[in-house]
């Protein structure tokens, strides 16, 4: 366990050792996402007062929250790191160590959370002053705690979902397009592009059963007080179930993939 936290610590230090990169990533990326969200919300509410149960400010708050949650869940650019290790041959170094590669990478992802949390703290502090607490939204210490729990599960789920996709690099060398496809699907079905409450009612059971909601929209719903305790508990159970499925799939793909590995690039 000490190794896990040491790896996480190293990743956190690495992430924060380049100050200019940290601030550019924080300001430019966040500013762009926020600007896009503002114009989408403005367009959506040009002829309506309420949409999917949100007021205009409520919707803005949802977008701010989901942008920040996504930043934590994705842990910046680590979602490419495994495929890159295989492609570049850097995996070889990890195969020499008497520890699991997946555990090392997950520890690194946890380490990358620290700078992501700093960004969240910096950019969420002003939100209540600008938007207030819109109608239908309930922000309390309890909802914040529920959100934190859901974010940690979402982070693990996101890691486990992208892990077997990245392992395709064992066969295809280059699997960026697959990862981009996954990212787009996750953005759509996870509620980053649009709140899931705007999707047709027939699709709701499907959205609830798929894993994408639990990566992004679910922690935001928990934060904004839009989930009952029962809904929260069942959502967490589904998310953990998907974690189990993805972990089993990852282990199987890893076993097959390492048979193919050539260490090219070393």
């Amino acid at each position: 366990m000490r190794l896990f936290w040491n790896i996480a610590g190293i990743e956190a230090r690495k992430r924060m050792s380049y100050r200019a990169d940290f601030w550019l990533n924080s300001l430019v990326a966040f500013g762009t996402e926020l600007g896009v969200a503002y114009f989408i919300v403005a367009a959506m509410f040009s002829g309506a007062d309420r949409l999917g149960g949100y007021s205009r400010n409520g919707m803005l708050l949802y977008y701010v929250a989901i942008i920040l949650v996504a930043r934590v869940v994705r842990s910046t650019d680590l979602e490419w790191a495994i495929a890159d290790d295989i492609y570049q041959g850097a995996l070889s170094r990890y195969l020499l160590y008497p520890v699991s590669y997946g555990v090392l990478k997950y520890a690194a992802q946890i380490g990358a959370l620290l700078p992501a949390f700093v960004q969240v703290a910096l950019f969420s502090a002003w939100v209540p002053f600008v938007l207030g607490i819109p109608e239908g939204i309930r922000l309390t210490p309890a909802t914040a705690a529920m959100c934190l729990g859901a974010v940690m599960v979402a982070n693990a789920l996101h890691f486990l979902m992208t892990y077997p996709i990245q392992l395709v690099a064992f066969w295809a060398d280059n699997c960026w397009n697959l990862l981009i496809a996954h990212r787009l699907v996750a953005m759509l079905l996870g509620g980053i592009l649009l709140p899931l409450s705007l999707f047709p009612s027939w699709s709701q059971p499907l959205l609830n059963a798929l894993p994408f909601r639990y990566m992004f929209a679910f922690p935001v719903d928990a934060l904004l007080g839009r989930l009952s305790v029962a809904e929260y508990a069942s959502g967490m159970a589904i998310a953990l179930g998907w974690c189990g499925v993805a972990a089993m799939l990852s282990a199987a793909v890893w076993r097959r993939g390492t048979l193919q590995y050539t260490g090219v690039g070393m």
Partner: protein
Amino acid sequence: MIEVDKLSKTFTVHQKEPGLKASLKSLFVRKKITKHAVKEVSFRVEEGEIVGLVGANGAGKTTLVKMLAGIIHPSSGDARVLGDRPWKRSRSFTRQIALLMGQKAQLWWDLPAADSFLLLREIYQIPKEKFRASLDYLVSVLDAKEQLTIQVRRLSLGERMKMELIAALLHSPRVVYLDEPTLGLDLTAQRAIRDFILRYREAHRPAMILTSHYMEDIERLCKRILIIREGELVFDGPLDKVVQTYADHKVVTAHLHKQAEPVRETEELRAMGQVDACNDVLIRLRVPRPRVAEVAGELLKRYPVADLAIEEVDVGTIIERIIRARKEADTAALRP
């Protein structure tokens, strides 16, 4: 310690002709070729032995080392390192081996080496006292204290290689693979690394396999060599036996008093041996071993010799000849 039995590795790779048309075609149809990187290689390495693995680029050296380190799986054959099959990557196996790749950084690039070493202590679960003693020993022998706290990417190649060696040896491995450990280093750094490897071997007695394109590495460090050509092991034996077996001649060099006329390559000179050089200042001949004393006497008698040197043929040249001889034999065998 290392037992290799008919180990083979075959890769399937895509081939693509150059040009746009070929690129378009490759989107639909690809030509695959099978490359036999390692072919039925067998050998053993014992504790305390440093074995040199030599061969041309693409001969299969690194593939062989990768299999023995457990990074890649073999296509056929078997190998045991410390009693384990390397590619199973058991914890007991990975805790006792190290691989140093001269052309690839294995440390965390953005951190000072000291941070990487602390991490490696956790990875290999090295007890604190043992870690401190190992680190102090390696740092003092390599004279690397100053560089410990500098970000790895800011170190020179030689300094980085010292840090890589420390990282590879911190856990006191019983089997060490060194793949081009002196690649790109200046002469001083090469010598420092070689001296260190010898001292480490004396102190810890690991089994070591060394690949290098620098013959001086091989000559200084290895008593035994394996020569690999196109994946096949073509020689396995003591380094001095290579010279005795394959160098049937010596190089005789006569340095001459300066003359007005350069020495001509006459029939008389050719009768003494193969003429490598002859001009107004020296004569260099390749002379069959039994005739060396006789030819030296003839040179002294017939030419104004200022100095005379009798040397063994350079090991690198001999190895090149072994590789070439096998290639020519194979080509001849294929001829109808």
